[in-house]
């Protein structure tokens, strides 16, 4: 596929001695939203960490924008233009909102340039700008975590469980934001909430016990009761 921004090819990843990923392939076309589906512990988060080199694969490779990232260290891979929004709203709690955004700058002035875009998506953050991170509510922390990934010009965003533990109204807001930012950069999403996933993504990859078992268009999956039942449990 020539116009894939990201190709994950048959990667095998170990955490310690545990063989977590046993052959995962994901192809992410440029633009739009792809979602990784699967049960808890299937290896979705590990796949994201493998892409970023936080857990380097022992076999297989990751190709970002036509370039293999093998042997590169995480900071170097991220600097190619990949933003990461980890699960559990991992913002820096001891830093202020402003510092949380500022630290993500890759070039001086990134934040000034993107401020309007970011505050357009998350108006709350403008109001909370000077507050320390640990004063934010769960939803605000999640917004900050996404906003942080938007500060530099990232071509690909890896977003892990953005709706986890959020109130329905906040989830609505978050979905709206993700849809908007996907106009600027490609999004690879991990999402347990199938309703959210099916409304956001155009295509999907299912990961089951460390292997990618099925991929296709979201429109086909939503009518495929049997597949949903088999891999994702009741939906």
């Amino acid at each position, binding site marked *: 596929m020539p116009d894939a921004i990201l190709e994950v090819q048959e990667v095998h990843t170990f955490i310690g001695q545990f063989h977590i990923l046993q052959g995962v392939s994901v192809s992410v076309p440029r633009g739009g939203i792809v979602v990784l589906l699967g049960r808890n512990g299937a290896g979705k988060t590990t796949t994201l960490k493998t892409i970023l080199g936080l857990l380097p694969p022992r076999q297989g490779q990751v190709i970002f924008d036509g370039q293999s990232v093998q042997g590169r260290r995480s900071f*170097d891979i991220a600097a190619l233009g990949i933003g990461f929004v980890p699960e559990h709203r991992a913002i820096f709690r001891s830093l202020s909102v402003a510092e949380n955004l500022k630290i993500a700058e890759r070039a001086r002035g990134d934040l000034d340039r993107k401020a309007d875009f970011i505050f357009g998506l998350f108006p709350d953050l403008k109001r909370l700008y000077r507050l320390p991170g640990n004063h934010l509510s769960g939803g605000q922390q999640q917004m900050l975590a996404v906003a942080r990934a938007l500060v530099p010009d990232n071509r690909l965003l890896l977003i892990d469980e953005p709706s986890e533990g959020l109130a329905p109204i906040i989830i609505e807001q978050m979905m709206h934001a993700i849809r908007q930012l996907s106009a600027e950069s490609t999004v690879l999403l991990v999402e347990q909430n199938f309703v959210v996933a099916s409304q956001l993504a155009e295509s999907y990859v299912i990961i089951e016990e460390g292997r990618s078992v099925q991929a296709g268009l979201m429109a086909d999956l939503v009518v495929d009761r049997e597949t949903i039942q088999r891999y994702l449990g009741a939906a």
Partner: protein
Amino acid sequence: METLRRNRTLLITLAILAFLLFTAIQGLSTRDWVITLLRGISVGAITFLVASGLSLIFGLLDVLNLAHGTLFMIGAYVGWTTYLRPDTLVDLLPPVLLLAAGLLLGPFWAALVGRWRTSRTVSRAWPWAALILAVALATLVFAQWPLARWDPAVAAQSPATYSLQLDQAIKAGQARAAPAPAAQGGLLRLAGAFLGSALLALGLAGFSAARYGGAGKVTGAPRRWALGALLLVTGVGIYTGDAALTRFLFGLDTAWLFLIALLVALVTGAALGALMEITLIRPLYTRPIYQLMLTLGLGVSGIELVQAIWGRTEFNMPKPALFQGSGAGCPATSIVDWLANGCSTIDVLGGRIRTYNELFVILIGVIVLVAVSVLLQRSRLGMIIRAGVQDSEMVEALGINVRQVFTLVFALGAALATLGGIIAAPSMGLSPLMGESLLLAALIALAIGGLTSFPGAAAGSLLVGLVQQFIIKYGQIGIRLPFLEQPFKPTPPLVPASTVLLMVIILLVLPQGLFGRKE
């Protein structure tokens, strides 16, 4: 909840301060109280220099550096050498600078060699060959390197004798005569030193290429070239101007010489710290217990090494002339007075405080406290450090080279320890074991303040210093306790015990320490 916890910290600190004030009314005259307080702050400042680096390193890298006391001690010895034997420093600088230049420029050479496509056997073998050649060259060159030295075994050439001579010269107001410079060698030796280190770098690069595949593009090439060339030129320059530079340094006022000693100690600490992190600590991040044992072992080896070079016996370091005067106008009555006359003491409330021990040391402590706080709170590096303390993986995922930041922080922490060593040397004296008691005091201070908190390190060190000094003072005059007939005099062993007791009490009330965070 947050405000309550903060107030609790404040309350405890205030309670302890109130206790000190209370004891002042009980047994001490105001004069003794002020002097003891200043001494306590001064000891606290020295402890802080060790504790702050320890806490920065522990906070970001999760490494408890048990070699920190040894670094402190090395700072004192290196500073002493710069201060008393600048000729040795001048002789040592060229090979060290050339070595650094060779290591810096090594990757270029490796990249050049990497272009030749060779068979597997050859590419496996040449790093070894380079390494062996480097070692051979080094032994050949450095064995003949002319170096002004002392001899701890001979009384007339021992460090203690040199200290005494300088002390007498300062008291008499004379400059020392520069000793005859060591015999100069040809430029061949310089070339040998540079070649040896470049070969060493080549060998190391070859190994890493064999392991990680391909010597890639050299990072930061223009800066590397500039710095390498600068080191090279400086090294050769010092080598050719050896005699003149030695004469100049011996003629310098001791205050300036002391300042140079501070800088040399700082640079040595930073270099040692960076070297230690890159070569020894880095491979062991996944095995913290081994790391702990490694730092412990390094500390002990460092002590042995220092004993081998400077001898086992303790010796003093004379204070600069600025802190030694006792003639006209002394003791000084104000700071201005002191600066004009260079008095060793200042009159305060009828008592005398020493300008070096009680004023200068505290001043340095405050400067470091402010400088590091500003670095942490206002700079981008500080922001990265604070973020990395919480989650270094996420910092890396933002595109920041965390490994480099780790090295920087380790170097900074080590530099603070060596700075502490040279600052403490004139008041404490030098002994190979001087760092160990400070390491213990610093660890207690950290436990009191909260392990990874920088303000905690400052507060903990201050408390440790104050408690120590007040216990010592009461050891002299005794405490009147209601249930004892005779005043109770704490014996010297109670001094370290009292700080441990303070730690136990504080940890019972606040398990995270004064400024610690609940995990």
